[in-house]
């Protein structure tokens, strides 16, 4: 048809979506082919990522239209003199019990303050890293009071079993293995409740906003439907997630339970994304994150409130409620 011809020649009908392989509405949209159904004329490719850093790079390389992204990589992306040309358009989930700080039982540590002088591992530049720093601060510890070690989840597991580290801030499924021989000190849920939530956002490129806003609307509608399905059809959601992750239904159910999923209404509310013209609390969260990162010398300077506000795309956001 002429449509597919346009897609192949102009490439305007192409949608490249980056996703993370952990339980979220994305997996349901992908598994149920909600987006493919909503946008039959688009050529949709799903690309799996496992770090916010590479998502940022892919956006820099103009290789992505829409992608999932943690709130701290996003804060980094929008700060600096030349922010990455993308905007946040959706919230996938909020970190809950699926990211947590655990200490080895044998250390006898039972609270965050007890970690002074201990070796703590976490994947640097991740949301866990951010939450860990926030937890330490809340407990009155400076980062220099502990030994922070940059480890990816699987090495964390290995180092943990050897006894090389005393505690780790990490996510599922490694987290579950650590819990078996450890004490949970805090979780992202608690830290979020204390005002420093970490979130998985969805961002869209400026280019797509200019080129094909209708596709964004359709995508958001699909994501909203997925969030509703998570609540209304838990069994179906578990099956979809299990199939996407290649894990057992029981594992998928357990993982889903530990995440915090908003309803579409919550996403649009002033508590989170807000509406066009009046961004919600997410604006503060992102600004706080950026400020925190700047304090940790992870970024040069705090982006202005304005700069963060400009990285919000809420046009037509409330339409998903219809």
């Amino acid at each position, binding site marked *: 048809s002429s449509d597919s011809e346009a897609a192949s020649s102009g490439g305007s009908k192409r949608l490249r979506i980056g996703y993370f*392989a952990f339980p979220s509405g994305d997996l349901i949209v992908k598994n149920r082919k909600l987006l493919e159904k909503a946008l039959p004329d688009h050529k949709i490719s799903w690309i*799996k*990522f496992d770090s916010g850093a590479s998502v940022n790079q892919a956006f*820099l*390389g103009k290789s992505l239209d829409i992608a999932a992204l943690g709130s701290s990589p996003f804060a980094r992306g929008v700060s600096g003199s030349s922010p990455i040309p993308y905007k946040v358009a959706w919230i996938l989930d909020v970190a809950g019990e699926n990211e947590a700080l655990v200490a080895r039982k044998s250390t006898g540590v039972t609270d965050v303050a007890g970690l002074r002088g201990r070796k703590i591992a976490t994947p640097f530049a991740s949301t866990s890293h951010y939450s860990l720093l926030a937890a330490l601060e809340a407990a009155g510890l400076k980062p220099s009071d502990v030994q922070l070690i940059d480890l990816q*989840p699987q090495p964390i597991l290995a180092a943990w079993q050897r006894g090389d580290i005393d505690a780790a801030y990490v996510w599922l*499924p490694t987290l579950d293995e650590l819990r078996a021989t450890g004490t949970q000190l805090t979780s992202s849920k608690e830290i979020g409740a204390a005002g420093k939530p970490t979130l998985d956002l969805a961002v869209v490129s400026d280019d797509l906003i200019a080129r094909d806003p209708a596709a964004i609307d359709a995508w958001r509608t699909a994501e909203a439907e997925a969030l509703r399905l998570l609540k209304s059809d838990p069994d179906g959601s578990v099956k979809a997630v299990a199939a996407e992750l290649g894990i057992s239904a029981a594992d998928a159910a357990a993982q889903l339970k530990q995440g915090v999923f908003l309803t579409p209404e919550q996403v649009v509310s002033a508590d989170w994304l807000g509406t066009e013209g009046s961004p919600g609390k997410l604006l503060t969260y992102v600004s706080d994150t950026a400020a925190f990162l700047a304090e940790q010398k992870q970024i040069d300077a705090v982006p202005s409130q304005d700069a963060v506000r400009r990285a919000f795309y809420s046009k037509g956001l409330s339409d998903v409620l219809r």
Partner: protein
Amino acid sequence: MRHVALPLGSLLLFLVLWQVLAASHTWSETLVPPPAKVWDAFVDVSTTHDGVRGYNGTTLVEHLGISLRRIAIGAGLGIVAGVVFGLFMGTVGWLRSLFEPWITFLRTLPPLAYFSLLIIWLGIDEEPKVTLLAVAAFPPVAVSTTTAVAAVPKSLVEAARALGASRWDTVRDVVVPSALPETLTGVRLAVGVAYSSLVAAELVNGLPGIGGMVKDAANYNNTPVVLVGIIAIGVSGLVIDGLLLRLERVVVPWRGRT
């Protein structure tokens, strides 16, 4: 006989040791799964199972095939470039002065350091992967060819010149065959290096692909699949190296005879 029996014997010994280690439960199963589990994983990722096809919708053979294609293109480009650069640098002094420092610089660069640049410049599809593999395969060939060309027996170059060979004739008929054995060693090393860069090359958007599979499985602590991937990479590497060794024997019968 011995050529086959010895490695097989050592393989058997290795499997037994592995089984003993796994059975001792010194390490959790996530870290050291028993051989049987790895075998199960192998069967799983090779077949359609519970409606799931292989790993991530792609069977092991397909993952491997896609990666091999990337290696073939990437390492192929790297090897060809390496031979060409090596020949020119070995024969023309000023080209060597000009390029050698850059090549040395290039080959000290960690792929993980410049991979983000590749993504930014070349996107997330095939190009950055193939480029990374080419960049990885290039140096061994370029370095060994350059050194070999610079060490071509002067006596044979003179013999060719005395027979009336032009400069180009000399390169084709003396320099190339004389450098061939070392170039082939370089090629063998290059293929190995390309293989070992596979996971790095497939870090981003690497599925389907065996390196991407290994990395993805590692993210989920799915060690059996990681090991299946590693073994698949290693075994296919063995086969290719075996072919290259055979090629060497056929193409360079004169080695050691001079």
